[in-house]
């Protein structure tokens, strides 16, 4: 069955690596009192990281004035209709109609106002409208899977879409990505720039997925999982998910509160 000549790793081998790296990270966190919110860039279970991570430490510099600002996006850049991924074609897309909404906040809990949020995702069958996606699942002529929004004065955003399906990839044998929506975010400062993925609660693929697991702190990973919010569901129409996003900056680690004064 193998479509690739190189021997692909099994899920069990990948899962063992995931477990070892997480145990190492937990031991290091206990020793140093710092936890890493962001994923490891050098993360062997996700094969493509091998040649795409820097081997030198990042050089810490103070942000320059321009970097303490962000591009000024606004409603002249984004039509409010772009936040509805279900109305971009003549017909209704197939799948489970959902809304995903929440707030974009900075590290002090202040709203990030008037900033750009971009999303993209697979359709309900787990297929992207991308020429390089060769997964033999059907394309949906009524679904592209791209949206944009500008945050409100309270930092809020809301997308109406279809729940994306999980899909296979070729990181290892029988590798599947949990269902997710890609998010691209700008904060008030360019140093807060973030691209990430939002997941759905209770996905059985979480433990198996090296992209999700590249974040070694379980509490940090959890912050990527949206919450089902019955109050956001619309009767006889759509299920509601809520996901707040926090942009503190590019800092890779945070100190435990007792170390905060150091």
């Amino acid at each position, binding site marked *: 069955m193998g479509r690739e000549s190189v021997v692909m790793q099994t899920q069990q081998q990948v899962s063992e690596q995931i477990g070892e790296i997480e145990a190492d990270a937990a031991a290091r966190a206990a020793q140093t009192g710092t936890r890493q*919110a*962001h*994923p*490891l860039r050098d*993360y062997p279970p*996700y094969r493509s990281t*091998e*040649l*795409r*991570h*820097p*081997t*030198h430490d*990042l*050089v*810490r*510099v*103070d942000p*320059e*004035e*321009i*970097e303490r*600002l*962000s*591009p*000024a*996006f606004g409603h*002249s*850049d984004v039509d409010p209709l772009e936040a509805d991924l279900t109305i971009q074609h003549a017909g209704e897309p197939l799948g489970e109609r959902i809304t995903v909404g929440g707030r974009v*906040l900075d*590290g*002090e*809990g202040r709203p990030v106002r008037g900033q750009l949020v*971009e999303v*993209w995702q*697979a359709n309900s069958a787990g297929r*992207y409208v*991308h020429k*390089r996606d060769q997964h033999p699942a059907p394309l949906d002529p009524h679904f592209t*899977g791209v949206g944009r929004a500008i945050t409100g004065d309270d930092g809020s955003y809301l997308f109406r879409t279809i729940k994306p399906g999980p899909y296979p990839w070729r990181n290892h044998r029988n590798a599947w990505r949990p269902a997710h929506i*890609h998010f691209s975010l700008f904060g008030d400062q*360019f*140093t807060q*720039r*973030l*691209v990430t993925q939002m997941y759905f609660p209770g996905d059985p693929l979480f433990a198996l997925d090296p*992209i*999700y697991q*590249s*974040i070694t702190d379980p509490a*940090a*990973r959890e*912050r*990527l999982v949206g919450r089902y919010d019955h109050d956001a569901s619309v009767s006889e129409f759509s299920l509601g998910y809520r996901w707040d996003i*926090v942009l*503190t*900056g*590019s*800092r*890779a680690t945070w100190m435990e509160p007792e170390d905060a004064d150091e």
Partner: protein
Amino acid sequence: MSEQTPSQTIGPFFHYALPYAGGAQLAAGHRADAIRLHGSVLDGAGAPVADALVEIWQADAAGAASRRRGSLQRDGFAFTGFGRATTDLAGHYGFTTVLPGTGFATLVLFARGLTHHLFTRAYFGGESALPAAVPADRRATLLAEPDGDRSYRFDIRMQGEGETVFLEYP
């Protein structure tokens, strides 16, 4: 204190979502002060990275940060300071912009296999403007090299020989 939402890789399938018309044209090419800033993105084996996204954020020619909208809907005149380019099959990206009055442009790199984006800066005026924290033997990696009429080359090496200096902010 709220806690940072972690990064995840941009993955391989962003091309139909993030690039937009005029994204790489911060300034019209026929402007007298227009420059080209371009280069290759290379991985640890020196192979081109054909599925990277590079963004630029910079001051205008006078050194001021633009507060103008219109980065996504270009009108061909306003300088907003932001641009977005994808690499082509040869791993090459390019922007049309102006020389930033501050002497540098901030770049951010996203790619499949990169779990968390990387910041760097392209400096146009020589090494003296670089932050002191950049080690002596790696300073040249932050220099945009003139390679033609109003053209500057800035290669981004993700790993290995000549690895670009990537930055983090406190």
